[in-house]
């Protein structure tokens, strides 16, 4: 059994069925890619897995580390080691990144000194020393927001990281940094699900498994070669 097991997930949003029975499994310490065209349900899947109240699971189960987390609120999922890196992280005025992350880390039973060390180290790692005392995502550029999400992942050390398009709106240097952060997390044992519709970032990363989501279903699953097939031939070709 994988660290994250998703079985026959059905999710309806505002009366429209977006996920129509999605199943897959993530392995500890591996990087998995979830690809699919716009509107295929990738972000819905990420929100539903993380427990967003607007994306309720209608059918199916989610297991994290063999525990059924389908009915748990988002914070309980997070406390058990699930992390969602947002495609569009919201701005929260007046709340400093440091302060927020310290609270989040405290909930994960991190000792303060350990947090402080990891936090400062991670700021340097993602070259965002100047962002630590800024308000959470307020006025961050697209790239800064993505790096901030990765920084949060690095500090929280999740068992499973769902990263929703960490590569969009990021320049080449930023992309290398983000790829390095993902690879490091996997090396330390995190199971990563990298959600993207653009295979460029995959060039930088050792991908173990690729899932292709289309119209609410996983239509293909395979090794890294599947990503190159998509890059060459587009989604039409892999739909089969």
């Amino acid at each position, binding site marked *: 059994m994988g660290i994250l097991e998703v079985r026959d997930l059905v999710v309806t949003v505002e009366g429209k069925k977006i996920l129509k029975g999605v199943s897959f499994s993530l392995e500890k310490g591996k990087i998995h890619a979830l690809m699919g065209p716009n509107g295929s349900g990738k972000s819905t899947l990420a*929100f539903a897995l*993380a*427990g*967003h*109240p*607007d994306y309720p699971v209608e059918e199916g189960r989610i297991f994290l580390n063999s525990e059924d987390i389908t009915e748990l*609120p*988002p*914070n309980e*999922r*997070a*406390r058990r080691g699930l*992390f*969602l890196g*947002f495609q569009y*992280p*919201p701005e*929260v*005025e*007046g*709340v400093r990144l440091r*302060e*927020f*992350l310290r*609270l*989040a880390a405290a*909930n*994960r039973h991190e000792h303060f000194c350990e947090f402080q060390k990891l936090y400062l180290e991670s700021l340097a790692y993602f070259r965002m020393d100047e962002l630590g005392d800024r*308000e959470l995502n307020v006025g961050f550029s697209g790239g800064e927001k993505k790096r901030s999400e990765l920084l*949060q992942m690095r500090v*929280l050390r999740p068992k499973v990281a769902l990263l929703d398009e960490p590569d969009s709106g990021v320049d080449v240097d930023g992309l290398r940094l983000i790829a390095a952060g993902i690879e490091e997390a996997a090396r330390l044992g995190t199971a990563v699900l990298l959600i993207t519709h653009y295979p460029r970032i995959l060039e930088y990363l050792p991908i173990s498994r690729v899932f292709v989501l289309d119209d609410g279903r996983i239509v293909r699953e395979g090794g890294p070669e599947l990503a190159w097939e998509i890059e060459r031939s587009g989604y039409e070709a892999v739909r089969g």
Partner: protein
Amino acid sequence: MKRTSVGLTAELIEEISREKGEPRWMLEHRLRALEIFRKLPMPRFGPDLSELDFSDISYYLRTVEPVGSWEELPEEIRRTLEELGLPEAERKALAGLGAQVDSEVVYRSILAEVRAQGVIFEPMEEALKNHPELVREHFMKVIPPEDNKFAALHGAVWSGGTFVWVPEGVEVAIPLQAYFRMQTQGVGQFEHTLIVAEAGSSVHYIEGCSAPRYTKAALHSGMVEIVAKEGAHVRFTTIQNWSRNVYNLNNKRAVAYAGATVDWVSGSLGSKVTMLYPSTILAGRGAKTENLSFSFARNGQRLDLGAKAIHLAPDTSSRLVSRSVVQGKAKNVFRGKLYVAPEAKGAKGHVECSTLLLSPEAETETIPTLDVRNHEVEVGHEATVGRVSRDQLFYLTSRGLDEAEALSLIVNGFVSPILKEIPFEYAVELKRLLEMSFAEAIG
């Protein structure tokens, strides 16, 4: 326990004055104020006060004899004050403390260095005996009884409070504090705080209130008068957390002479109904005021707040900032008023009100009044209303914060521009209060 007969009569006023052993002029002042109170109408704006029954309130009561040290306080009162973190604040060598239990100041301690600087920091009643001329010169001169019905009521029945006088050029390094509490249901508190800062002096006064819950409506109608003479700097911080049955109807006003600065920092959390509009009259060239207000209105509360700056002299400046949070079925009103007189050339004024609504039933109203009588001014006004978005909440909870923590973080962030202006121990207590409140609301 001694308790005056319920109801408001000239006999009652005479009894209070006799009991306190006041000079004749004060009794006459009280009786005149009572006449004015009877003639003046209720406020024509703001919250519904129709449930307030003036004949059903005790106007003067004393439960505990004055004591000189912490240990002498009755245990029950000591415990309540300890829950507010008072002894700790004391240990931190705050300049002194007057804890008002019911209508008498029962406990106070003044640090030797403050006294050595020539500062007067005394209960009003004592100051009236020890410094009669100084008190008479200033008492209810900034806010006369004619000003409004509650000012008149206060003038008639005031009891307790603090007198502060800072000699010329003296800077009081540590804040002066007083705590006010109500003990018995149906008891009104009418404490009077008068601060006179002589030229070039500076002082920070902190007033914090917190009261246990009562079953019957109570009235609190205190008054604060501040006189900041040439170049003086007075900062007045209040945190109000009355129980939810209290009508909290206050008058607070300052006069700032040339080059003087008066800062108001006000936090309003409790009460059933609050009306509070700290004002500064900028009477001399270059006088300044900053008025920072934050409020948190919850189920059933009606907080009617505001700030005023009256620019009467050239080159005066004011900044009125408010941050209001409304949760559940509650209403918050903020009235930001700037008046700039024809002779106040070169005046600068800025009003900024932001509200954060936490529930669909929460109500807010922002009422700016900019009355500008000359053209050589810079005045501005901005108002915003926001709601906590589901996306923000989800974002924070997806990192492991529970909903109460997430809301509390967002609200703390929202009020942080004001919160950072209040003393540390209060900020910590406030954060805790907010968290407790959200945990309660979410269940």
